[in-house]
């Protein structure tokens, strides 16, 4: 039984409840136990951080301090499924550890709330990191009862998990391949998705919708071009932007994309044989049923949607001939869609 401290964050309570449900559904098959932080507060997303330097550290500081209280039996790993929460918490930990003066200031503030935090106490880690490095691909492979054969997925990382990656837990800030490895273990067919690490537009939909729509369009269009059935994400903000604003984006550009946006944990759940309902399916705005059909999963959709079809994608590039290509060490990077 693996025990983790757990920080759901605001998103998982509401707009990303599908993420929450699917994460919870993985506890039993993978033998994980989560202990939620008592009375945690919002991580401040990108907003608090960007306006209050010390304030944001104090905001994280409170969460870290509360988490520290719950550290027991040397288990100090705090699991954060939301990428923004993960970045904010780990960033605070990182800077507090490196800057005594800052740590002192933060603790002075925390003291007014009867709290204190010793940098280095909590080890903040993202869900993907835990699944890959604690559980491991082999153990996950062993649990797969319903391979996702026939499902073409675009693995989408977004920003916060792989950048800036203060603790260097992920292979590359530019072109990682670990999520692909995981999805392949589930039996899914991973398409080459060069936009995998591009930005989902973050808070742009609220600040400058047109800029946001353009960024969203690029991500969806690329997935469609690569004939993906769904984009798999690990971040509530990415999911929200690509899913909830997809319709507005279509309206803005006069496009008709219908690209379902799912959480990687939802797919793991499916592969483990869990029922879609149990995994929060149906909460997405862009109907995921067409995608689920590909792997013979049926589901009654709560809200009614008319499912359009994606426009025919341009021909995939052919395998190159002529001069030899450079040898590449890692997989994925060299593969051509054909």
């Amino acid at each position: 039984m693996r025990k983790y401290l757990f920080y759901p964050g605001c998103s998982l309570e509401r707009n990303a409840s599908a993420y929450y449900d699917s994460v919870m559904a993985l506890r039993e098959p993978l033998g994980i136990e989560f202990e939620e932080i008592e009375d945690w507060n919002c991580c401040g997303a990108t907003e608090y951080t960007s306006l209050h330097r010390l304030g944001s550290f104090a905001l994280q500081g409170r969460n870290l301090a509360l988490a520290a209280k719950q550290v027991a039996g040397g288990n100090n790993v705090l699991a954060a499924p939301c990428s923004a929460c993960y970045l904010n918490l780990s960033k605070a930990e990182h800077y507090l550890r490196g800057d005594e003066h800052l740590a002192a200031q933060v603790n002075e503030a925390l003291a007014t709330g009867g709290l204190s935090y010793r940098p280095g106490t909590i080890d903040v880690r993202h869900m993907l990191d835990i699944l890959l490095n604690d559980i491991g691909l082999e153990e996950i492979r062993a649990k797969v009862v319903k391979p996702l054969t026939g499902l073409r997925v675009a693995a989408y990382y977004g920003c916060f998990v792989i950048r800036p990656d203060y603790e260097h837990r992920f292979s590359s800030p530019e072109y990682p391949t670990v999520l692909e490895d995981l999805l392949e273990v589930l039996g899914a067919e991973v398409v080459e998705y060069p936009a995998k690490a591009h930005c989902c537009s973050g808070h742009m939909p609220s600040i400058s919708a047109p800029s946001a729509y353009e960024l969203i369009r690029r991500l969806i269009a690329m997935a469609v071009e690569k004939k993906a059935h769904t984009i798999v994400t690990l971040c509530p903000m990415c999911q929200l932007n690509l899913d909830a604003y997809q319709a507005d984006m279509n309206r803005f550009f006069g496009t008709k994309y219908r690209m379902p946006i799912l959480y990687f944990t939802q797919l793991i759940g499916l592969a483990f044989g869990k029922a879609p309902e149990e995994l929060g399916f149906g909460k997405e705005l862009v109907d995921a049923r067409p995608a689920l059909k590909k792997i013979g999963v049926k589901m009654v959709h709560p809200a009614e949607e008319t499912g359009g079809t994606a426009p025919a994608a341009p021909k995939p590039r052919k395998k190159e001939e002529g001069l030899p290509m450079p040898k590449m060490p890692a997989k994925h990077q060299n593969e051509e869609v054909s």
Partner: protein
Amino acid sequence: MKETPSQSGDTGSSFLEEVIQATPGDPRLEMCIQCGTCAGSCPSGADMDHTPRAIFAMIRADMREEVFQSNTPWFCISCYYCTVRCPQEVHITDLMYTLKSMALRKGYARNTAWADFSKTFNEYVFNYGKAFELGLATRFTMRHASLRDIPGLAQMGMGMMARQRMSLIPQKINGLESLQKVLTRAEEIEEESR
């Protein structure tokens, strides 16, 4: 401690020094070689009235007014591409945050959609301890969204609610009082240290 221009024999721009001091860790801004990798990498670079590189040059040139009036930091989406690609490892994203808070403190960018979104969000954090999408969406949208957008956004909102992805009432954390004390004190310390 972090090296300031006067020590490093840089331009000695007091603005440069201030920005560096107001940023956590050592942002290495004085090391910028003006290569433009940040500007080239920025997803919203096209919408900025000055590219990040240009902003850094302006900081060195002490062009406070222009920098604070610029929309550049407000269009930063925090994707951190610039930060990981910068050949001098300048903490560009962090610096954009610094510029935002400095601008506000100096009375710029008030009542702009950009600043207001963050502020609205932060008010919820302060008053409830948690984010509240619906309140944020409505309050903010009503104030800034153009009429053309509203139907779409409303429809989206309904969809979200239909799927229980938006709560109708904000939740409060129990320790709100202590949280507010903590945040208030943090702000005081920030002011004192300035």
